[in-house]
């Protein structure tokens, strides 16, 4: 049988671009992570060197409970707090605002966090937690907790949490909009049938609404996870990973290693690890979507 080459010509332009701008940089980065600065193959030496650095994992900090605990741990904490919080908040808001008049205005305001450039978002977070002008401290004073007032991003024990909370505000619009769209897709007959069938509001939510939103939840969780793994901009502008690395994350550490320490091999190790992590998330999501 003669091989028909015509279809391949059509994908060739795209393929060339993908090879130059995606596949080549990725493979170059991965190979760099196995090389010494002089260009010799060193096996996993770079990995061992990087993973034993305090900036990546600080065992002492983890065991004694102080920051910095290491960029990997910071990313993990980010995921543990931000993922459930922003997802749930988006879902709850979407449900509450579902049949409210003028809710599109409220949704738009919440969604502003998503359209704001993250650099600007990071600056806003810095101001939000500022001692003098921050709205958080104003709120604390208003409810009689004036003794807690401080610039939250400047202390090792609160810097990371401040950024995480700020990022919840920036990202909640994403899950809110997706869940709102998902809710609008559910025919109202299901709710009416359930009401007549005798279900309470809670039963309707947990047995009808939530299961029908499962595809949306999958998308929200995956996209959020990827965002959290790659988080960079807001940390860069709000705290620069500080104080003392207390709010440093993998992507920022990668940047520091490459462009401050000029240790490209170590930086490549982090890049490779990040790629591997995001790839796992993407593959799981892809499999789920394909199965559907």
């Amino acid at each position, binding site marked *: 049988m003669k091989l028909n080459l015509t279809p391949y010509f059509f994908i060739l332009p795209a393929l060339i671009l993908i090879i130059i701008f995606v596949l080549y940089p990725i493979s170059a980065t991965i190979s760099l992570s196995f090389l010494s600065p002089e260009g010799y193959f060193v096996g996993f030496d770079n990995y061992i060197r990087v993973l034993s650095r305090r900036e990546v994992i600080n065992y002492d900090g983890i065991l004694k409970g102080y920051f910095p605990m290491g960029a990997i741990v910071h990313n993990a904490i980010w995921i543990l707090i931000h993922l459930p919080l922003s997802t749930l908040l988006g879902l709850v808001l979407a449900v509450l605002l579902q049949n409210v008049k003028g809710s599109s205005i409220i949704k738009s305001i919440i969604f502003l966090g998503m359209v704001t450039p993250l650099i600007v978002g990071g600056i806003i977070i810095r101001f939000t937690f500022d001692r003098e002008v921050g709205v958080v401290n104003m709120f604390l004073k208003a409810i009689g907790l004036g003794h807690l007032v401080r610039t939250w991003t400047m202390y090792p024990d609160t810097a990371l949490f401040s950024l995480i909370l700020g990022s919840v505000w920036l990202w909640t619009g994403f899950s809110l909009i997706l869940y709102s769209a998902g809710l609008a897709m559910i025919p109202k007959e*299901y709710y009416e*049938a359930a*009401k007549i*069938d005798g279900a309470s509001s809670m039963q309707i939510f947990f047995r009808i609404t939530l299961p029908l939103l499962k595809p949306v939840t999958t998308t929200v969780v995956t996209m959020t996870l990827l965002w959290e793994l790659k988080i960079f901009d807001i940390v860069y502008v709000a705290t620069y990973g500080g104080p003392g690395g207390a709010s440093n994350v993998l992507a920022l550490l990668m940047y520091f290693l490459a462009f401050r320490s000029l240790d490209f091999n170590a930086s490549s190790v982090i890049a490779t690890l990040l790629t591997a992590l995001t790839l796992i998330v993407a593959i799981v999501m892809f499999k789920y979507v394909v199965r559907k």
Partner: protein
Amino acid sequence: MADVKVKNLTKRFGKVIAVNKVSFDVKDKEFVVLLGPSGSGKTTTLRLIAGLERPDEGEIYIGGRLVNNIPPRERDVAMVFQNYALYPHMTVFDNLAFPLQVRKMPKKYIKAKVEEVAKLLKIEDLLDRRPSQLSGGQQQRVALGRALVREPKVFLMDEPLSNLDAKLRVYMRAELKRLQKELGITTIYVTHDQVEAMTMADRIVVFHKGKIQQIGTPSDLYKKPQNIFVAGFIGSPAMNFFDATLTYKDDFIVLDAGEFKLKLPKTFSSILRDKAGLEVVLGIRPEHIKIYKEPRASTVKCRVYVVEPLGGEMIINFSLGGKIYKARYPGEISLKPDETIYIEIPVKHIHIFNKKDGKAII
């Protein structure tokens, strides 16, 4: 089991009055059809009874209990939706079990009950499937099953057959009627299909523009329509209408329709005595018009427009005075378009309506 009473029910959507002072009763175990064209208020009335809408005025009683302020789930009614509203993420078993599960019935009872209903509806083999894996007819049975499973006081059905193909619809019509009689559940059924209404209902409530036009048995509505709307809506093909004037001639009342005149028997004169000169509408059903190829006494000459053969019978469209009318001819007759025919309108089958208000006079 229970009866349903609706009293002066009114529902407005903004400035539109969807249901306007509607009152009717449904007796225990009765099959009542709410019939009307789309936008006539029949579905809204059903939704008011279900509790999915709140009435602006009026009262709804189910089993003697005022339910205006009682939420749907406490009304003990079950509803079958036009598009079935089967929960897509649940299996057939879970769909059927849902009304019992949310009421926290024991698992053993739920299983037994679901199996019993599945057997009744012949869907035992489908219990593990999802709604998306079922045909329209099977989905419809599951929807019925979900309504049946908790033995509600009242069954509400919103055009349940309209999404089925024509053949299945005719089959399910009979199935549904038999099931309703077998189980003896009070049923309120909404449809815009008058054939469905005629074939299934014990009584029909005809809706138009939010108001009830007539309540009666199928035979009542067919034989004694109370106004032009009901006369035109019930029966297929629809009743023919001719504008006419009542006149007197030699002590007889004569219906002058322009193209023809009908001498009415003396028995009508007591009703029509003082109505000379009145503008009326003469109604005659297609099946009552007689057709001849040759002229006879009291026939009217007209022209064939088109013939629709139905196998056992034919619908003959004829033109008279520039308008097209329909007649039903039992058996076969060879007619061509533009051929001349002679029709007879038997006086004993005519209906006379007041042209002004559309109300039936005879």
